[in-house]
């Protein structure tokens, strides 16, 4: 009986601590004049207009990234793929922000 109890406890601990948080399911892309809701389960490519021109983003297999943006330092493009709920990214010079939601947030914020 003790063995069964231990196995149940280990199983429960494994279930609780080794289950990854559910990834984001949607992203909101906001520009000075547009607000687009992206379904992260639907592969797509979108253009959004900012003061410097068009920023291009793509959704592939539950993740989203800036493909290109008319800013010079390319920080948004370098930030790569985003799939976690609560992740934020932006092209600041082009005033475009990306916020992922849905799913379950592992962290309230990321320090970077």
């Amino acid at each position: 009986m003790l063995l069964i109890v231990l196995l149940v406890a280990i199983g429960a601990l494994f279930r609780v601590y080794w289950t990854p948080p559910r990834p984001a399911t949607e992203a909101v892309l906001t520009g000075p004049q547009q607000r687009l809701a992206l379904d992260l389960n639907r592969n797509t490519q979108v253009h959004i207009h900012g003061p410097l021109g068009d920023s291009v983003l793509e959704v592939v297999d539950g993740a989203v990234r800036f493909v290109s943006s008319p800013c010079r330092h390319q920080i948004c493009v370098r930030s790569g793929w985003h799939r976690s709920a609560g992740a934020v990214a932006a092209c600041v010079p082009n005033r475009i922000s990306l916020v992922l939601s849905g799913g379950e947030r592992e962290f309230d914020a990321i320090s970077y």
Partner: protein
Amino acid sequence: MKQTFIGLALCAILAWGVWQQRPAPTHSDVTHRELFALGTLIQISVAGDIDAAVMNQAQAALNMLEQRWSVLGDGELAQLNQTLQTQARAALPTTLHDGFVAARQLCLDSDGRFDPGVGDLVRLWGFDDEDHFRDTPPPTPQLKAALQQRSSLCDSAIDAQSVVVDQPPARFDFGASAKGRAVDEVMSLLRAEGINNAIINAGGDIKVIGQRAQRAWRIGIRHPRPHDGRTMLASLNVHDGEAIFTSGDYERFLIHDGVRYHHIIDPRTGYPAQGSQSATVLHSSAERADAAATALFVAGPTDAASVMQNMGVEAWLLVDANGDIHASDAMRARVDDLAAP
């Protein structure tokens, strides 16, 4: 029968214990708002609803602080810098006075690792503005000249009305402390408006008030070199009034001939600081955390402990250029899942 009952009871107790330890899931109990200010995307998250009027106040305060501390445009700092291009003494507006005094002390505490007197060097590297972007390092003679003629804030004199530098031209850039100062001010504003549970995330630099629905705010620290699916260096609970700031070489940089030149300039050499990939600091003052993260990055592993001690920072974490992790005992006691090198 009795054994079965005892067994089931133990199972129930264990299950209850496990459930109590389970990390609380995050749902829609927090409201998020994003705004652009201080050259970054700022996210303010409040446990509960956000009052639109308070957000408008926060936006207005951030816009004012950006204007005040920007090296560009015609704000107070930009005008002061303009004067210092030709004169050793410039009038110091009352709105800048406390920030200058605090930054000078931080400069001294860090033994010059944090020094707003790098303004001309940062400008030469093109990291101060989108329009100054360059894809090659500045010519060495220009860098040497700028390094030789620069005035450190450590050596400048500040009184109630003015700041006096060693020699003109001089240019101050508070990019490594003004954001922290702004975060402190916005958090004070939120508290004054009765918000007791909130988090402000200024482009990855964070300060919190209170907690989130019966648990502490949970913060991840980005790994400077994500690999094998590992994107976080560590994670920790951050408590009321604490700020966590990270400086890294992975966001703003140029690559020339295969060499990465990042934006954290060592005031002593004029070149991007060597020896670190990322530096994270935990402190109650966001302004101090901001400056200390830069100083820690510049100090590198050899001087990290002494510089942090002099700056009054107990909890710090550094990833050196080889990817090795250095952390104070206070930080090790706070973080979970600290990545292996």
